[in-house]
């Protein structure tokens, strides 16, 4: 077996016994998870279960309290500032609210990572900006607009175009369809699928939209808030294909999948969860 075969089979992202604590509050506990190259993984779960925290930890924006994260054979804990910067250039992050720089135009936003790392000439940068915009279905006429002048769906797509600018190996989507109308949500889902078919990328999609999870993902994991779990319960309730999640008998999973309140109002009144 060649070395290349071995590296292809090894998981691209490997998380071992990850625990994240903010002060006295534990958000993630003993998470073990691996993501293969080329896979699209959806992380689902209700608000506050630690989905976004998990994704920010993968890219090194949050440091683990304990446990380890390995990306392409490199442990994140061993990397210095410069190596971490190099590593982040292999990622694209689509933020929940797009997180566009509001002092810059659309073109400057998309060009930002390219300019920061001085890897293209100005004309190449301009070319990439236009190309990425057309990939996410936006006209060239908006390049001089400020983010405040765009609609929510447009901002999300500019955010995706910016994440794609560096042609990343891994794209992390944080709640890509939250706050959008059903049609625009499906546009984003289609773009996630299209991005994957055009580029050999690994994707992690954090969402609480079951339609997104079933449409775009090869694999789904469901996280549960620690405040609702007993001391030794695993935090990952489900790890499998999007189709077989329907067959799961775990009440907690079916409640989320079907979006049922059940006794939540009474529980919340009692201060549980």
């Amino acid at each position, binding site marked *: 077996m060649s070395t290349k075969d071995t590296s292809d089979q090894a998981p691209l992202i490997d998380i071992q016994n990850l625990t994240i604590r903010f002060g006295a509050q534990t958000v993630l506990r003993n998470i073990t998870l691996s993501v293969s190259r080329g896979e699209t993984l959806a992380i689902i779960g209700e608000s506050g279960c630690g989905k976004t925290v998990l994704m920010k930890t993968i890219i090194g*924006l949050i440091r683990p309290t304990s446990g380890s994260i390995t990306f392409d054979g490199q442990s994140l804990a061993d990397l210095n500032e410069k190596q971490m910067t*190099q590593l*982040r250039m292999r990622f694209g*992050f689509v933020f929940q*609210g797009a997180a*566009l720089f509001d002092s810059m135009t659309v073109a400057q936003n998309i060009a930002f*990572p390219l300019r*920061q790392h001085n890897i293209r000439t100005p004309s190449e940068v301009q070319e990439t900006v236009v190309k990425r915009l057309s990939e996410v279905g936006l006209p060239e006429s908006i390049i001089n607009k400020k983010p405040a002048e765009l609609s929510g769906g447009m901002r999300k797509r500019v955010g995706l175009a910016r994440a794609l600018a560096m042609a990343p190996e891994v794209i992390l989507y944080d709640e890509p369809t939250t706050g959008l109308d059903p049609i625009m949500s499906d546009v984003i889902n289609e773009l996630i699928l299209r991005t994957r078919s055009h580029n050999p990328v690994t994707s992690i999609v954090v969402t609480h939209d079951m339609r997104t999870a079933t449409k775009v993902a090869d694999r789904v994991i469901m996280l549960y808030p620690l405040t609702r779990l007993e001391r030794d319960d695993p935090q990952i309730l489900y790890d499998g294909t999007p189709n077989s999640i329907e067959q799961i008998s775990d009440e907690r999973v079916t409640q989320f999948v079907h979006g049922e309140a059940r006794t939540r109002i009474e529980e919340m009144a009692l201060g549980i969860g």
Partner: protein
Amino acid sequence: MTPGAETTAEKSGLIAKLYLWLVNSVADIGAIALDWITSVGSVFFFSMQTISWLITRVPKKETLLPNFYQVGVRSLPVVALTGTFIGMVLAVQSYSQFAHIGMQTRLGGVINMSLVTELGPVLAGTMLAGRVGSAMAAELGTMRVTEQIDALASMGSNPIQYLVVPRLLACLCLIPALTVVAVFMGVVGGAFYSIFILDIDAFYYWHNSRSVVGLYDLFSGIFKSLFFGIAIALLGCYRGFHCDPGAEGVGRAATAAFVHAFVAIIVLDLFLGILLIGIHKMIWPAGSYIF
């Protein structure tokens, strides 16, 4: 139960309550102290990171210019106005005291000495802590809340190097320059009021100013403002970076940036004042009439 036993039970209940209150108070004071020490450590660590980035990499021109414009050009009118009025107010307030003993020409020395060494730098610093420090905290706080700082980091830029270093440099270079403007306008305002409105003889007014205010005093004022500038930038940026979520968080960050910078300015003013007088005495033990 006998009445005596009831009183004893009541007493022990009261003692228990008092004990609990005391323990809680000590715990609260301890928590506040711990919180304070943690945030001082955190500000120190943040400052060290900023300084290390400042030394290792020169920021790009496109990040420097907007900050220099915001801090320098946009603050100029308000700083000049503040300076002018401080000078005139000093003239108004001191005149009656000095006129009483027929020493109104001494006003020049008093006004200009206070302006150059104390009031100019401190009031310009306070003004700029409100204008520049709060604006930095609000802007960076909004960037933190809307995940723009995370976005910067996710694209392989260091947020401290990209956002804090240019702001620190702008304050470091321009707050002393603005202090010079405030002092100059104060001198002009004070002289205008004294000479044209209070009818003090111009020749003696300037003559007394020259004999009291030396170059070392001017240096003291500018030297202090250098530290005020550092404090304003670092505290403003720190508050923005550690902003709580929501509009309330941003508002609190902006207020905290001003209050902390103001406290830092008056504390630094005292200690730098002691240091500068000490140095002056060390160099010129018999006093200096030139510097």
